[in-house]
């Protein structure tokens, strides 16, 4: 092999990498928080609401889950301006990623809600609790606990998927790659380093979710 790997050039660009990393973290945190809350509400609609509302929610979930994220992103960032709605890069990114995550979250949380035995709900209702009260105090936490692994896996996947917004020039970690690439011409090394950083992020996230589980769901 006549090629010499030059990682040092890449490491010299640590500012670009650091800036990209920060935006990736901000995007991930925002999207996960929003996507989780919205997704849980949609899940509640899917399980408890009137048929017309359930139908709408179902349609939303199916459309998002059966089309690629990058196409959803392009539709929001490039397509909407065609009918007069313009978003800046970061807003479009958060919008597209959140709409996407909420749909996947809704499916997962829905399964969790449906896994709670009817007898639990009857016990709550028999005490005089209203529907929303039963949801909040009796159903929600056990449901989330049941689907915690799938849910947190989805969150980690979303963090990795934020790389796709590099394609609308959001200056996150993956986009830092193309910046460094044009400066150093070290294509392979750049993306290897970035890949390792993503791997590190995903490992830290998983560990973090493990800790969260013990805090929220561990009993004395």
């Amino acid at each position, binding site marked *: 092999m006549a090629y010499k790997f030059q990682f040092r050039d890449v490491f010299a660009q640590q500012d670009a990498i650091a800036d990209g990393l920060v935006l990736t973290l901000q995007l991930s945190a925002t999207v996960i928080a929003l996507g989780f809350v919205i997704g849980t509400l949609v899940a509640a609609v899917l399980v408890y609401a009137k048929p017309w509302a359930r139908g709408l929610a179902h349609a939303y979930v199916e459309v998002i889950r059966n*089309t690629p994220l990058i196409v959803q992103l392009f*539709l929001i960032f490039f397509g909407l301006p*065609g009918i007069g709605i313009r978003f800046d890069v970061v807003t479009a990114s958060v919008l597209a990623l959140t709409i996407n995550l909420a749909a996947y979250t809704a499916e997962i949380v829905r399964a969790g809600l449906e896994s709670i035995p009817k007898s639990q709900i009857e016990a709550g209702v028999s005490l005089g609790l209203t529907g929303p009260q039963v949801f909040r105090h009796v159903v929600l936490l056990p449901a989330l606990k049941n689907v915690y692994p799938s849910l947190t896996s989805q969150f980690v996947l979303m963090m990795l998927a934020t*790389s796709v917004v590099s394609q609308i020039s959001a200056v996150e970690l*993956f986009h830092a790659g193309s910046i460094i690439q044009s400066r150093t011409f070290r294509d392979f090394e750049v993306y290897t380093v*970035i890949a390792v950083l993503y791997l590190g992020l995903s490992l830290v996230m998983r560990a973090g979710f493990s800790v969260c589980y013990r805090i929220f769901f561990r009993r004395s």
Partner: protein
Amino acid sequence: MIREVAWQDVMYLVFAIRWTLLLTLLALSGGSLVGLLVAAGGASGSLVLRNLARAYVGLVQGIPLLAWLFIFYFGLSIVGFNVPPWVAATVGFSIYAGAFLGEIWRGALISIPRTQWEAGLAIGLTYLEQLRHVIIPQAVRVAIPPTVGFIVQLIKNTSLASVIGFVELTREGQLTTAATFQPFTVYLLVAALYFALCYPLTRYSRTLERKRRVVH
């Protein structure tokens, strides 16, 4: 020049589906080979093999698909292969799909209860015969619904091949947008075409899942 989206454009988009499906097929083939190895290793009795399989899956799943595509696109040309985008895409997708398929299939294998192995042993079958006649047929039935579900993921994932220049449906959409300046219509169309591909498969995988649960 701004022009309306003509039937011609729609046809180009529809025909681009060929490449999406072709790439999906290539990814499925390559991914299956890798996946079989990962599943076999992950379900085996050897601690070393199991850890290797786990490490592979952990590594691949911890890195974005885009990164894998770029690594292979640039990496392969370094090692001397001047590869067209479709080769880089195929290798990248195979590595990526192999990890996910391996996990699904490993799960299917280990879901077969120990008692099935013992029953096979009791009538005198060897390890390979047990696998072939008792375990794998049952594992395949368990594995089919999630595998079909994953094929839907693959179809969607091929959209990322557009980023390294492979002309499939998404890239064709970008080109059509550049030609017609009608991004809303074009991307809506592209989304609709993906939906037409994926939704029937999603429904099918759910029917399979339901049938399996009824039987067991």
